[in-house]
């Protein structure tokens, strides 16, 4: 192991290390802790200049409850769900197929199609912005969740294909060959042989894409506007203009907006990190 495990060091060293880790963590999360503190303070603390002291009274419940009762936040959260979930399903489904095609079959244009997906995935969003916005307008899908979902699916297919194809490449080919010898059709091979083996990849990718899409801001701003359709990342700016300089409310709102992917991460940690670090170890 590197660096040398602390267990092999002196007792004093060990104690220092154990004390240092939490201190480092607090420093690391300081900006976030500040916002968390703001979010449980009553309004009066801000007018009286008590910014970083302990809250004079615990107003966490009121503040967070107000986010749900006095603002469009629930609506934005719901929009985010209705944008994120279909995108995850769509992108994962498409990329299971493309990944399978590119990972299993050998044909001449294979590598070029693969490169197209990979390159497209790295393209700066801005080059797509004007045409995609026009396309969406012309299809009558501007300012609809569906318009946003369709674009997200298409764009994420690039990254997902890269991910799935590499995963399928690493699967034992013998299974597929054996099935072919027995005369199983290609579609059934995909469905009954490969797909079950891809479960861990599907789980990892779903968690990743969920986070990416939930956190998307750019396309939300370009393709939607207003309470009916905008996800929470875009809604938070409208929320903030509603609460102007009420920092306790804006803080509570931001924390709620950030929470779903954080919960997703803590619940699905194993899959999440497996997905992120795929390829980091070889």
């Amino acid at each position, binding site marked *: 192991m590197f660096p040398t495990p602390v267990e092999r060091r002196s007792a004093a060293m060990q104690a220092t290390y154990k004390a240092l880790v939490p201190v480092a963590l607090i420093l690391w999360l300081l900006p976030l802790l500040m916002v968390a503190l703001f979010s449980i303070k009553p309004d009066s603390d801000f007018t009286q200049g008590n910014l970083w002291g302990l809250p004079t009274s615990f107003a966490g419940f009121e503040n967070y409850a107000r986010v749900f009762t006095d603002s469009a936040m629930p609506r934005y959260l719901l929009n985010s769900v209705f944008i994120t979930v279909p995108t995850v399903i769509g992108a994962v489904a498409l990329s299971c197929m493309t990944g399978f095609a590119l990972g299993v079959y050998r044909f001449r244009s294979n590598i070029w199609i693969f490169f197209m997906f990979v390159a497209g995935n790295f393209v700066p969003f801005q080059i797509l912005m004007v045409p995609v916005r026009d396309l969406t*307008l012309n299809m009558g899908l*501007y*300012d609809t969740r569906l318009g946003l979902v369709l674009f997200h699916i298409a764009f994420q297919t690039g990254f997902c294909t890269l991910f799935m194809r590499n995963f399928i490449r690493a699967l034992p080919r013998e299974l597929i060959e054996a099935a072919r010898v027995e005369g199983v059709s290609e579609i059934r091979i995909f469905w009954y042989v490969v797909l079950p083996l891809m479960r861990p990849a599907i789980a990892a990718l779903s968690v990743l894409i969920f986070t990416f899409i939930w956190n998307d801001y750019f396309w939300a701003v370009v393709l939607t*506007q*207003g309470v009916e359709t905008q996800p929470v990342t875009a809604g938070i700016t*409208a929320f903030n*203009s509603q609460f102007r*300089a009420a920092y306790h409310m804006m803080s509570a709102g931001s924390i709620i907006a950030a929470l779903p992917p954080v919960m997703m991460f803590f619940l699905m940690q194993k899959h999440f990190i497996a997905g992120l670090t795929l390829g980091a170890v070889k």
Partner: protein
Amino acid sequence: MQFTFKGAAAALAMSTMLAGTAQAELTGNLRIFFNDQNPAPKAAMEGMVERFQALHPALNIELTLIDREANKTQIRNYLTANAPDVNGWYAGNRMRPFVAAGLFEDVSDLWAGEMGEELASTRPALTLDGKQWGVPYSYYQWGIYYRQDIFEELGLSVPTTWEEEKANCQVILESGRKCYTIGTRFLWTTGGWFDYLNLRTHGYDFHMALTAGEIPWTDDRVRETFAKWRELIDMGAFIDDHTAYTWQEAQPFLVNGEAAAYLMGNFLVAPLREAGLTDDQLGFYQFPEITPGIPMAEDAPTDTLHIPAQAQNKDNARAFLQFVASAENQTIVNEVLGQLPINRNASVADDKFIQAGFEMLSNATGGIAQFFDRDTDAEMAAAGMEGFQEFMVMPDNLDAILQRLESVRQRVTAN
């Protein structure tokens, strides 16, 4: 609530009928996109719609409220695809792109009659290419909102000349406060200062020629305006770090007494009252004279309603605009809005600030400007206000800023 409302609506219907403005009952649909969701404008618009509905019970009215900022970009989409019958927007050059693209309906026919005379004061603001393109429902004054109690404490009186303004400011600074709060994170607040300094230094005609792109930004007269501005900047009159704040985040400085005044539009009054300032603490005065003898001109932005060229129910829309323009309606709407009616027969709400604004604007012999970003071309406005912000932070960059604005002006006028 409902009952009293219905009663009022009936009475209103009677009076309008007597006045002879009511038309035959309307049927069909009327879709309205209104560009504000804030409490007062929302109430005002909903009230207007309910009263119009009472006049025409068979009409199917659908009202959509859009966030003010979102509407500024959204309007491009809804005017070209799926247009409503009526939409909210602003007067002046800000309607030019839509007029030029043929997306607004020519409503000169409405202005030809009696309505045109009642709204005469804003006719120029709604005229492009000799035609009228919308109907105003409200406007509001700009000016200096100040802490009366601080002025009293320091023994200051309301200034009427530039020298007095600066002398006051010096006293305020010596008391450990700043003279003016401002938040320039969103750039438009700087436009107010430029407008007033320029209007007072060189008058309305020069200002309008400059904003119309007819005068180079490198003109010496423009420099004179900036020199006035610089006097305040060099005194340290503005709050520190204003680039970090929005116009709302700049309010606490006034509320807490760290700054004594705020150059702003009348919509400032509502949030300040909400924040706890009483009418005894808060006062209003007209931006003082700079060059003696120049007739006083003011910024008074006009809020308007328009008919998209692609509207489905233009007859209903026209009837609605006519209703909106009427004196009765404008009286009620502006009482709710806390703003000024445009119809000369409407009455002005009994509110300290609205009354002050009304008096000031009635005597604005110099002329009425819309606002920097409504009087100039959009691209020029963006570049201009960015330059103003830079000037407020780094006044030494003035030459480079003016050169840049001039090159934008040349490109814009060439297009």
